[in-house]
């Protein structure tokens, strides 16, 4: 399974926060990652039982480019080193602000096909409010403050760098 091809993995447990961040060079299955993550949390002790509230976001590549034409693939460039560091900082800060217990971030890099997952964010907390707010805020943070760049490859072989995110 290609989703096992983790590029780098950062696992932290600062102040009780269970944090895991991975960049994937090849397609990953969000639900398989989630399942593995829940097993890992369960194995890390009875005190970190399944969270009462879990908020999850999965983002996938659209079938169409920004101009409406069919999309061949999305190329995701990153800044090796800084991207991982920024993700770690953004996640740690966001989780601390909302007081949540666990955070999983999985992000694709490289050539991503329509329908494939680009990003997975999963936040576990004791209450639904913090879980949902943290999941949303972290998603916006990594969309705007983690160095990733998307290039759309169209069917005609031309490619164009995107200079902004899809509007909320």
């Amino acid at each position, binding site marked *: 399974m290609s989703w096992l091809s983790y590029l780098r993995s950062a696992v932290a447990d600062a102040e009780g926060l269970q944090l895991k961040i991975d960049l994937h060079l090849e397609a990953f299955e969000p639900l398989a990652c989630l399942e593995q993550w829940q097993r890992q949390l369960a194995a890390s002790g009875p005190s970190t039982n399944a969270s009462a509230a879990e908020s999850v976001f999965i*983002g996938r590549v659209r079938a169409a480019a920004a101009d409406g034409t069919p999309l061949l693939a999305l190329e*995701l*460039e*990153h*800044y090796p*080193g*800084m991207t991982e*560091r920024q993700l770690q900082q953004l996640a740690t800060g966001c989780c601390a602000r909302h007081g949540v217990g666990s955070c999983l971030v999985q*992000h694709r890099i490289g050539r991503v096909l329509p329908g494939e997952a*680009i*990003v997975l964010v999963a936040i576990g907390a004791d209450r639904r409010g913090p879980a949902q707010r943290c999941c949303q805020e972290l*998603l916006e943070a*990594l*969309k*705007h*403050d*983690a*160095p*990733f*760049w*998307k*290039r759309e490859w169209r069917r005609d072989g031309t490619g164009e*760098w*995107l*200079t*902004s*995110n899809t509007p909320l």
Partner: protein
Amino acid sequence: MGEPSAAGIRIRLFAGLQEQAGWAERQWTADALVEATLTPRQLWQTLQLPGELNSVRVAINQQFAAADTPLLPGDELAFLPPISGG
């Protein structure tokens, strides 16, 4: 990849900016640094990078930084075009 000269400043461009400038990485040699403080803003102008500096973000040693932060020998400087992740 640029030369691993720890005393100089490594300059990196990404994505659309890299494509427009026509290069990905340069080494700014240390001897050009001795006279005065050098900032990302000055390097942006000196290197005649395309577009407006305020349309990009500056990172020094892989942390976001202000464009007027003084650079030190050994620093890694990056100009980051608009981010589109997630």
